[in-house]
């Protein structure tokens, strides 16, 4: 009964499409893979070469000032980072951090303008909303496949998959934040003769700042949550340690590396939340 149409070759179509894209855009993908990949790698290496004690001091100072001159977070950062160093996971931490920073930055650079566009145009909203839904509901593993096809293995495909997975919140929150600006303030801006971009930069974005920063925070956290998955396509770092431990059923090292991720997550989360308040 149900077989009146033979199996639709959707998977084949997707294969062909991906191949096409790969061939057509080789001139983009290849330089990204080579040049950007090289840049990311050397950033991570450079970070790993900074003496850990220096990094710990800088982070401690930064958390101290960001959290309004309270000691709690700084103490946590000092102890947490020292622990990671003590477990000989310092280099992995630097790689993971690099991955998260690049993925977050790219997500934000794409996400905020997309959110702005969405807030300004009914059409953009109608088109972008289902795309975001799709991006968020699709299991994150699925993004690994095109990531590998386009960018091979290493840090770049990891960043690519993380960006796809982590961008939606910042887009949504930017859109929401701008749409929530009170009608009277928008009217006030209009009544004083603002142009579109004056209104955006002088009224809407400052008013939406807190909401947008909440989106940024979520985006960063999602990017961090991708590090284990990204390690499956060869992104080095703490995620890779977890994955290796998993493959070898070594609870101990797996737990320790996982703890490292948690420490990084807490520091990044608190810092980005406090930036929001300030």
């Amino acid at each position, binding site marked *: 009964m149900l077989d009146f149409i033979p199996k639709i070759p959707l998977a084949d179509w997707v294969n062909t499409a991906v191949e096409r894209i790969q061939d057509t855009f080789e001139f983009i993908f290849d330089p990204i893979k080579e040049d950007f990949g090289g840049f990311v790698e050397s950033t991570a290496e450079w970070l790993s070469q900074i003496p850990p004690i220096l990094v710990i001091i800088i982070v401690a100072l930064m958390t101290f000032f960001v959290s309004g001159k309270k000691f709690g977070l700084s103490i946590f950062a000092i102890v947490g980072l020292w622990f990671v160093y003590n477990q000989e996971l310092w280099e992995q931490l630097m790689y993971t951090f690099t991955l998260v920073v690049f993925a977050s930055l790219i997500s934000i650079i794409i996400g905020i303008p997309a959110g702005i566009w969405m807030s300004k145009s009914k059409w953009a909203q109608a088109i972008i909303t289902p795309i975001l839904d799709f991006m968020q509901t699709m299991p994150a593993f699925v993004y690994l496949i095109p990531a590998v096809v386009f960018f091979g293995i290493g840090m770049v495909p990891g960043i690519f998959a993380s960006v796809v997975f982590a961008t939606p919140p910042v887009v949504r929150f930017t859109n929401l934040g701008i749409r929530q600006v009170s009608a*009277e303030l928008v*009217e006030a801006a209009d*009544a*004083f*003769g*603002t142009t579109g971009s004056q209104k955006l930069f*002088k009224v809407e974005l400052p008013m939406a700042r807190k909401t947008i920063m909440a989106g940024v925070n979520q985006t960063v956290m999602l990017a961090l949550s991708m590090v284990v998955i990204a390690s499956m396509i060869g992104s080095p770092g703490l995620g890779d340690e977890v994955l290796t431990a998993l493959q070898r059923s070594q609870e101990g090292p797996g737990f320790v590396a996982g703890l490292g991720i948690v420490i990084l997550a807490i520091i990044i989360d608190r810092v980005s939340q406090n930036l929001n308040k300030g």
Partner: protein
Amino acid sequence: MSVIKVNNLSKVFGKKTKEALSLLDEGYKKEEILKKTGCTVGVNRASFEVEEGEVFVIMGLSGSGKSTLVRLLNRLIDPTEGDVEVGGENLAKVGKERLRKVRREKMSMVFQKFGLFPFRTVLENTEFGLEIQGINKEERANKAKEALELVGLGSFIHQYPDQLSGGMQQRVGLARALANDPEVLLMDEAFSALDPLIRKDMQDELLDLQEKMQKTIIFITHDLDEALRIGDRIALMKDGSIVQIGTPEEILVNPANDYVERFVEDVDRSKVLTASHIMKRPETVDIEKHGPRVALERIREQGLSSIYVVDRSKQLKGYVIAEDVKAAREKEEKDLHTILRTDMPTVGLEAPIHEIFEIIHDAPVPVAVVEEGKLKGIIVRGAVIAALANGSGVTEDA
């Protein structure tokens, strides 16, 4: 000269605006049109002119279309039909660029809930309009500070709006509008969110400012007392239409229809109030001591056009007008006897308000309140109208 000229201006919210307009032509009411077409009539064929330097009040109940009408004037809302001429230019027809220029330079708006930017300081809020025009930092700070001085907030410039009381916040709103030095001020229920007492202060202050600056002001309110207090003329709106335009006296004395009458009927508390309730302390010169020089000084200081003259025991002698005093001063006369006038209206302390209302109409100077020949106080036109309006009659400086 009229600064604003509104002709046959309509706004219909909804999709079938043409249909709604033609139903309006056929005499259908607002509710019927809503039922038939799903469209809301915001403003229905409004026509009026506002003179330069006039305070033109638009009054009506909530939902009568006041906010819509005022937003049609600077085109925050696009009209469905009709013309809005500002300084001879039809804003309904101009392009975006030009409209922006008009909003930047000619018309500023003050909002009911103040519309201040919470992330900007008082000074930065006040600078907003100038910043938008691309005026350099120094100049805009100077102009903004000037405007803030004008509304009495000179020492609060580095505070944020949420650190100020409602009344002060609205002063910032007013300063922001004034900093642009616009020809026209649009004020949509600007004082409605304030406590009654603060509201009265703000009304007085607006009138004071207006005396100095002579802007053209369109003031929206749902409150008759407020309208009577500050309006040179009042337009009454109902269901999107203007039902009467007139001076406060005209509205009170000759309500155009039942609607207006109902609006003003509980205003008639005039009989219980007397001159003593609404008079204020007179500004005087002493005929035995003072000559034209002192008289002129006082007249200038207080911004008067005339001043009452008394003798040492406060007996009312008459009044002198500014022009005469000036002339006398030029001729270097030593006293006021030659220019003294005595045709002033006088009433007793117990005179009821409606009596004063009748004589104040064509009086050349404020009414003198006299007891046993002594000048006890003076009554200005505004005080009578305010008293008729709100019945309290107690003027702040009485």
